[in-house]
């Protein structure tokens, strides 16, 4: 089986996101689709699978053009898409979802037993251990994804597109999924895999295609590529992955943020930490280790159950962002779309939002002062290609993240809490944000940073804390710890409360 994609183009609001992209897929092979955020990967996959209508482009199946106008058409031709947002009906069972809309029936009466038999066969073929009677909403994410894969197979899909299927899976779950992907290919399917994990792509894919700015850059055997060469194709230039060195913290630098025994439900079980002026403290740990919850409890986004937080010696009340902000605390939250920005509002309004009180006269916004402050901040943060009046949603992920930082920097906090400073931003913006954090610390700001990227924590922080099960289980000075050690600590299984050294950094200056 051979699938040719010819001349795919798509523009949103006159702005092209895909430009004349052509390449071929083969049955029995796994094809990696790579590119930076915004390169057009997801759009291409959706266009091929009928989820969005391309402006130009057609699909040839074994040389014959086929018409795909909707996901239904695509399925009829054997094209299935497993996207990042799973398309399952949460209130139905696994079995009902797998055969959604195609339930076997006799004169309109469902013959559930026939579905169940077919399901058992499928489950055996893939090795997925799913209870057909379980409700999808009760399943963990990895299992829900398996349901989608089974559904694709049940529909007889021969071409299966997967958009970042491993992004939210654990290591074990990822390995299992990759094995299934290989197996699907071995059974003759053409699998298209979008992933940001280059090693993963190289290990599982036979072929790779790289897109850049909506254009096709290269298609070829994965064996000819290395992570470095892929990155070069993606960014169009060799990329130095290095972190700026943080300035040393002065001997006499005072502790600006002091947290003692902070607790919040089961997520945060007694975290103590100190941050000195000019110090970057990085927190590593798995998702669910209580990293973000610790930040939120310190800031007051969630009401802490116990413990004290002091900023420059002044105690902060629990659960009050306004009080924390008055004291000089700021928090860049984990998800800019859900917690950080008001996407429909302008760049200017978003930047001004956390410091409205600083530029007002009798309740009126001082427009001139605000425009100047916001404009200067955009300049400082190098947010290009946007005007203050345009809505934030029109900005790239990197620029949105910079706007989010800008919002918190207008009032110059004394301590900045940052959760995932560079999630979902492009490479250039990422290094600018790293630079920004280092510069802020050099100016005397205390920074407490949580990141899922261990390299980021190790590369930027003066001091590294590792969290597990709601506690700090390790503390290291810069350069004293390797990525492997951090991961080993973070992953260590046995949540025995006595064994965990809950290191309150009491002895530190």
């Amino acid at each position, binding site marked *: 089986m051979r699938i040719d994609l010819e001349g795919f183009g798509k523009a949103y*609001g006159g702005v092209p996101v895909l430009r004349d992209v052509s390449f071929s897929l083969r049955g029995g092979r796994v094809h990696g689709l790579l590119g930076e955020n915004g390169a057009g990967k997801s*759009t291409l996959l959706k266009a091929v699978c009928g989820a969005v209508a391309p402006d130009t482009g057609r699909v040839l199946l074994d040389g014959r053009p086929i018409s795909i106008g909707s996901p239904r058409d695509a399925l009829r031709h054997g094209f299935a898409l497993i996207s990042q*947002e799973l398309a399952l009906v949460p209130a139905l069972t696994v079995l009902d979802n797998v055969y959604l809309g195609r339930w076997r029936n006799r004169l309109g009466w469902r013959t559930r037993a026939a579905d169940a038999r077919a399901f058992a066969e499928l489950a055996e073929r893939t090795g997925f251990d799913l209870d057909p009677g379980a409700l999808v909403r009760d399943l963990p994410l990895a299992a829900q994804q398996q349901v989608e894969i089974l559904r694709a197979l049940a529909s007889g899909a021969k071409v299966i597109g997967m958009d970042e299927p491993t992004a939210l899976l654990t290591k074990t779950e990822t390995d299992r999924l990759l094995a299934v992907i290989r197996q699907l290919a071995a059974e003759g399917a053409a699998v298209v895999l979008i992933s940001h994990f280059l090693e993963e792509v190289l290990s599982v894919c036979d072929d790779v295609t790289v897109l850049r700015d909506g254009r096709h850059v290269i298609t070829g055997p994965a064996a000819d590529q290395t992570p470095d060469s892929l990155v070069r194709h993606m960014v169009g230039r060799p990329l130095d992955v290095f972190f700026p060195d943080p300035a040393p913290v002065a001997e006499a630098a005072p502790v600006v943020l002091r947290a003692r025994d902070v607790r919040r439900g089961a997520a945060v079980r007694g975290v103590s930490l100190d941050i000195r002026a000019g110090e970057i403290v990085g927190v590593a740990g798995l998702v669910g280790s209580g990293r973000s919850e610790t930040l939120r409890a310190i800031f007051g986004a969630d009401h802490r159950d116990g413990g004290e937080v002091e900023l420059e010696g002044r105690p902060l009340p629990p659960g009050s962002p*306004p009080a924390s902000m008055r004291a000089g605390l700021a928090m860049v939250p984990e998800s800019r779309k859900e917690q950080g920005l*008001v996407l429909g509002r302008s760049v200017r309004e978003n930047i001004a939002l956390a410091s409205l009180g600083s530029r007002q006269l009798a309740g009126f916004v001082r427009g001139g002062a605000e425009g100047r402050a916001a404009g200067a901040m955009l300049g400082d943060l190098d947010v290009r*290609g946007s005007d203050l009046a345009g809505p934030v*949603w029109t900005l*790239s992920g990197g620029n949105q993240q910079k706007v989010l930082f800008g919002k918190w920097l207008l009032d110059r906090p004394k301590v900045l809490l940052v959760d995932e400073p560079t999630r979902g931003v492009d490479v250039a913006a990422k290094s600018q944000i790293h630079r920004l954090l280092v510069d802020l610390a050099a100016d005397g700001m205390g920074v407490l940073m949580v990141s899922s990227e261990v390299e980021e924590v190790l590369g930027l922080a003066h001091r590294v804390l590792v969290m597990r099960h709601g506690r700090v289980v390790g503390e290291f000075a810069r350069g004293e710890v390797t990525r492997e050690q951090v991961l080993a600590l973070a992953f260590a299984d046995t949540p025995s409360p006595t064994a965990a050294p809950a290191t309150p950094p009491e002895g530190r200056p």
Partner: protein
Amino acid sequence: MTTTAENEAALEAAEKAGGGAAAGRFTRLRDFGVVLGVVAIVVALSLTTETFLTTGNLVNLLDQAAVVGLLACAATLVIISGAFDLSITAVLAVSAITAVVVTGGAGVAAGMAAAVLVGGVLGAINGLVVVTVKVHSFIATLALSIMYRGLAVILTAGAIVYPPEDVATAFQALSWPTVLGGITAASLLFLLVAAVCWIVLARTTFGRRVYAIGGNEEAARLSGIRVGSIRVAVFAISGVCAALAGLILAARGGSAQASMATGMELTAIAAAVVGGTSVLGGEGAIWRGLIGVLLITLIGNGFNLLGWDTIYQQVVQGALILGAVSFDRLLRRSRA
């Protein structure tokens, strides 16, 4: 994971190619669409009737728009904050009845002040219930509106209430024409309130916070905005607008009753939405509500002037609302 990757891709690419301009174009097109509708009707009515462009008719048109206009200001404000207030006409009725009752005991001025106070208090109660019980505002204000209507029935014992004879004329002051070209006091009140709401939303820190709460409540909260207080304030303002609309209606009729303005809250919400205020919150403007009111009022006026059978009026109004919202949807599709 509400925003799709496709979207993200589009947006990131859009940014690279000057997406701000593209977004601006969409916004302008949408504004244009609504305004175009109004202009088209105005031109059509000016050409087909001799009476439309007369001072008398325009004054009349404005007067007709006053009540639903005040309610549309309330609806716009609440919808922008990301909520709905279905109780505005029930608040209107209770306020109007309060005005009549208090006027009987303490005079017209006290009656009007009492009505506004009651409107504000009932609105604040709406806000408090929405904030503390955390029921969706649609349901909460629906339930509260039933209670308020019930309260109105209790206050009036189910009858129409009138102010005392000796102050009846003063009570109707709002329906009088003023020296300003015969424009009624009601119209002036409406224009004044609309201007105040407009300025509050567009120019004050309070307005900014209202937009932020409607656009992304969690982001607003994490930005240090006291979401609860803002919500209560918005509902209270909505209640005051409703009370003022109630005063106008009571002044026109010289009386008040429990079933006043029933159903008009939906017209007000429709006016807000037709103008382009998003039902999802965080977007919109008072002027949009005013355009919507104008459009809806013009249709009534047009039917009148053209001598068309008014039995078709509702069908046309409904179709217009549907058309405007569909158009809005169409223009936003690239974002949704």
